[in-house]
């Protein structure tokens, strides 16, 4: 259980690194050794959805500040 959580967390970190565009060689090797492509894609889509929600919140916040 703990192991799954840890791997899941590492996948999330890997995807976030991708979105940010920077990843170190060591972490990449670990991702490719331990990770599964499907997990990365699933987490990627999930995080992209979260990214969309985050931008929507950002827009709402900007609008509330902008008084419109």
């Amino acid at each position, binding site marked *: 259980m703990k192991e799954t959580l840890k791997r899941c967390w590492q996948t999330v970190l*890997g*995807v976030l*690194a*991708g*979105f*940010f*565009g*920077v*990843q*170190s*060689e060591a*972490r*990449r*090797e670990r991702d*490719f050794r331990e990770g599964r492509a499907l997990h*990365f894609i699933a987490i*990627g*889509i999930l995080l*992209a959805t979260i*990214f*969309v929600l985050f*931008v*929507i919140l*950002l*827009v*709402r916040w*900007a*609008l509330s500040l902008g008084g*419109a």
Partner: protein
Amino acid sequence: MSTLETTTVTGEQHESHHHGPAAGIGRWLFTTNHKDIGSLYLWFSLLMFLTGGVMALLIRAELFQPGLQLVEPGFFNQMTTMHGLIMVFGAVMPAFVGLANWMIPMMIGAPDMALPRMNNWSFWILPFAFAILISTLFMDGGAPNFGWTFYAPLSTTYAPPSVTYFIFAIHIMGISSIMGAINIIATILNMRAPGMTMMKLPLFVWSWLITAFLLIAVMPVLAGVVTMMLMDIHFGTSFFNAAGGGDPVLFQHVFWFFGHPEVYIMILPAFGIISQIIPTFSRKRLFGYASMVYATASIAILSFLVWAHHMFTVGMPLVGELFFMFATMLIAVPTGVKVFNWVTTMFRGSLTFETPMLFAIAFVVLFTIGGFSGLMLAIAPVDFQYHDTYFVVAHFHYVLVPGAIFAIMAGTYYWLPKWTGHQLNECMGRWHFWLSFIGVNITFFPMHFIGLAGMPRRIPDYALQFADFNMVASIGAFIFGFSQLLFVWNVIHNVRSGEAAPARVWEGAEGLEWEVASPAPYHTFTTPPRVE
């Protein structure tokens, strides 16, 4: 090509092939050899590049001076439309598929593509698609004249009759692309030599793997949107027709949902090629390989979230404008800074400047300029001024010509000795490079100015204040256009003659493709190599 030597590799032969290629035209019609198909794709793309180029020169000739001189406005619109379609679907995309066919099996140590017979089909339906598309020029009512983005209702209710042929041509191109993409994915995932783990894949292969997934995701959407058009035109549906409760803006949303990832389809393989070439001529490993792979992969997902930045002026509500502006700006940075990785790869290297490297450096510089204007276009309030002007024309030509096309040329020069077994004629390569480089900038840089000054795109005639820069741009276009004849000459000359090239053509080159002889034997890696 002159790959007539028989392979010395023994062992199991692939498919029905014997030691060498079949003789005559049958070799090309029925070939399942990835090298033959790669060559076919590349020759086809060159032909389309020249066809689209002639159209571009016709456009620039008409725009040389204000007033209508050469062509009627109606024909001008057909030219801009056909130029766009032919360059995107006929020149850039098939060229990348050709390079993939040639190089991916050799780079991953595979004997051929995973699905050789499908490979043959996916190429041979392309000439039919373009024959249909080009034949519309001779039809009653003329060729499609609604721009390569074919916005409804101009492309439905108000379209010339040839629109139906255009739709079928798009369908065939889509099928070809999807088959090509499936083949590439299957090859990369299933055909790697033992020891060639995903971690060791050259960046060109990585970028193509991601591009292929993008193709499978968006080409069907394009097929969907043209099918909806077909139904609106012939079967009385109202997807895009306001009279029946449809919405012309919906067309733009669906089109750009395809169109934005399509932009990446045309640039990611270019990133891959440049990431092969710069390390070779810097004699140094690519800086931040891991970052490159991760960033490229995440583009594939994130590119689906920003499509509406192509349509800021359609009257989206404020929330929509802000969403797409913020999303675009946030996504642009992590991908844009990959340019820094190439610069850092060159930093403290041991640089030489053979023709492929010249094109690669020009790519980095000029693509960055295209990236900058892209950044400017992302800012919605300012985009209201830039949108649909020559500033946009300048932007995407900077991304596509010295971007995608230069990368294709860099890749061609880089791998040509491997294909033909002949060393490049460096002198002629340099001539081609410098004329292209100068021509491209004289053509497209002034377009920034005329766009900012207020010239809309897709017009056959313009106001007098735009005259000088248009003349400059036209001169540049002719320099660039005619210098491509040098490219044709270079390639043909290299196929026919030249100094014998060694297996490792370039001193700093690394990878499996440089382990096989030059020219690459008709069958390579029939016995899989063992990687490290």
